[in-house]
């Protein structure tokens, strides 16, 4: 169903949502830095950045989450489960790359044998309103990674910024439930033409030049390649790329408190941290940055596809923008392919 929402009604539309739902949207923490947060006022929503620093995975898989609390009452240990809020939730303003990433995380967390109930509960309760990318950045390569700047898959409603209004598509059952929303009007035929123009322009800008296609097979042959000796050199082993990556989903579980009272919490973790696979005996199967960088790239482009038939990268480009030493994953992908420059063969990266 194709509708439109005039920008003059946008604030009221958001307020309406806030009254009935827990609304998560991009919020600016300081100029140039935004994250997804639960908002109380329409004015908090900030869409000036193409994407937020912390990706939308934060809304379903928070960076820090209490799994349960416990308290010793007499001799008995009482475990107190965390309960989700009663209200339904809306995620507004997530870009197609972030939304595709949620479905990638879902493949791991909602498996056949065991289900991550914390993630699933949030996912079931959330209606996703995606937002198309009229102006992808030069660092975006979503198309190469199987997505595109206006990918609708995963969104329940999809908004496209037309300037004076938003073009609105109701895509799923959850989305159709909004068809009676008092702020939505019928879409104008001119809107549809404009949308097509925006889509074409965006597709052209993103292009299709990064050889993600076929990378699983190429990496199969590169397990012990000298490629890994060079790729890791400048990496300093911080956690920015993993924390800001919309698909990275590794976590750590720790107990906080003491035997009388406390909680078990899970936090995001990173395979680039030396502690990640450090065993208590002191043995570390991935002792240096070389093995850890290899693990990260192989997991994204070889191990994950083996299990789920999809690369675990959506081409959002955050790792390129925010890496302190300007590691560019696109270059790493190109180096695995016949497209790599001749100078690479001479050991010059």
């Amino acid at each position: 169903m194709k509708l439109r929402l005039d920008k003059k009604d946008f604030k009221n539309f958001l307020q309406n949502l806030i009254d009935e739902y827990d609304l998560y949207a991009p919020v600016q923490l300081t100029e140039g830095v935004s994250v997804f947060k639960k908002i109380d006022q329409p004015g908090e929503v900030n869409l000036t950045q193409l994407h937020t620093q912390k990706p939308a995975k934060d809304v379903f898989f928070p960076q820090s989450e209490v799994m349960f609390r416990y308290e010793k009452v007499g001799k008995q240990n009482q475990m107190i489960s965390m309960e989700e809020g009663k209200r339904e939730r809306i995620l507004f303003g997530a870009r197609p790359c972030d939304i595709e990433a949620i479905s990638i995380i879902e493949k791991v967390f909602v498996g056949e044998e065991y289900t991550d109930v914390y993630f699933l509960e949030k996912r079931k309760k959330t209606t996703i309103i995606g937002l198309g990318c009229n102006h992808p950045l030069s660092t975006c390569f979503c198309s190469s990674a199987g997505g595109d700047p206006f990918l609708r898959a995963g969104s329940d409603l999809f908004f496209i910024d037309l300037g004076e209004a938003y073009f609105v598509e109701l895509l799923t059952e959850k989305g159709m439930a909004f068809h009676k929303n008092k702020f939505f009007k019928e879409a104008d035929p001119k809107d549809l033409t404009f949308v097509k123009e925006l889509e074409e322009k965006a597709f052209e800008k993103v292009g299709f030049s990064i050889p993600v296609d076929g990378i699983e097979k190429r990496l199969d042959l590169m397990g012990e390649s000298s490629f890994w000796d060079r790729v890791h050199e400048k990496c300093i082993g911080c956690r920015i790329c993993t924390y800001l990556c919309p698909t990275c989903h590794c976590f750590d579980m720790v107990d906080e408190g003491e035997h009388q009272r406390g909680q078990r919490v899970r936090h995001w973790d990173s395979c680039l941290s030396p502690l990640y696979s450090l065993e208590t005996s002191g043995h570390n199967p991935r002792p240096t940055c070389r093995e850890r960088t290899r693990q990260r790239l192989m997991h994204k482009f070889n191990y994950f596809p083996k299990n789920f038939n999809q690369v675990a990268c959506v081409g959002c480009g955050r790792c390129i923008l925010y890496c302190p030493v300007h590691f560019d994953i696109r270059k790493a992908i190109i180096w695995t392919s016949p497209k790599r420059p001749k100078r690479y063969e001479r050991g010059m990266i």
Partner: protein
Amino acid sequence: MVVKKAYVETTDRMLRTLELSFLDEEDARAFHFIPGQFCELSLLGKGEAPLGIASSPTENGSLKFTINKAGVVTTALHHIEEGAEIGIRGPLGNGYPIDLFKGKNILVIGGGFAFTTLRSLIAYLIHPENRSKVNEITVIYGARMPGLLLYKEELNQWEKRSDLKLVVTVDWGDKDWKGKVGLVPNVLEEVAPSSENTYAVICGPPIMIKFTFPKLMALRFPDERIYTSLERRMKCGIGKCGRCNIGHLYVCKNGPVFNYAQLKKLPKDY
């Protein structure tokens, strides 16, 4: 679960066995496992530790774990007293391929405190219900010193059995030790069990495996019939948190038991 019994196994006091019983009858009834599986033992306030189940499914009522004192959680498990409560998540992992063992000879090689899940396997196989399902059982178990052997009383009983060939060895004997002295790889060479129709299960420290493996090759054991149980740092134990992967497989979910044919195809992240 509650701690029914707790005792130190080794003279260096680094290994302690806990016998746990379920608080709830229903839990006890619902808990089915096979040898080789593990559980995440939980001490509220300290954390969790993945530990191989040392007791056999045939030993009803309680679960046995032998714990090496190494970090925060395992040290705390060394200090808790009988009657204390411990949390448990399990059984996790894939366990030994008992179905494949039917009608075959089994060679078990253990070193040091990696013997825990092997105890589970042996106790399971020699149980009257299961003994006839497999042919010959040979066990070679070695520790650095006599005081570091696990389950000493049980070993004594097993040595007396006729349906099981048990060779216990130590790297260095002491004045009371009357048994074999020799490194496990060398003892294996001596015992030289036939590889025909035989499955080998080997668990031990990396150095032991490194030197034992060529001996198994020399005895012509094919890769698909050599099984081992791997260890990795674990948190969730169910293949979600990501950290225990070797290639596209997870040690907690697709393992910890793997055969060498599988391991040869995977990266050496262990």
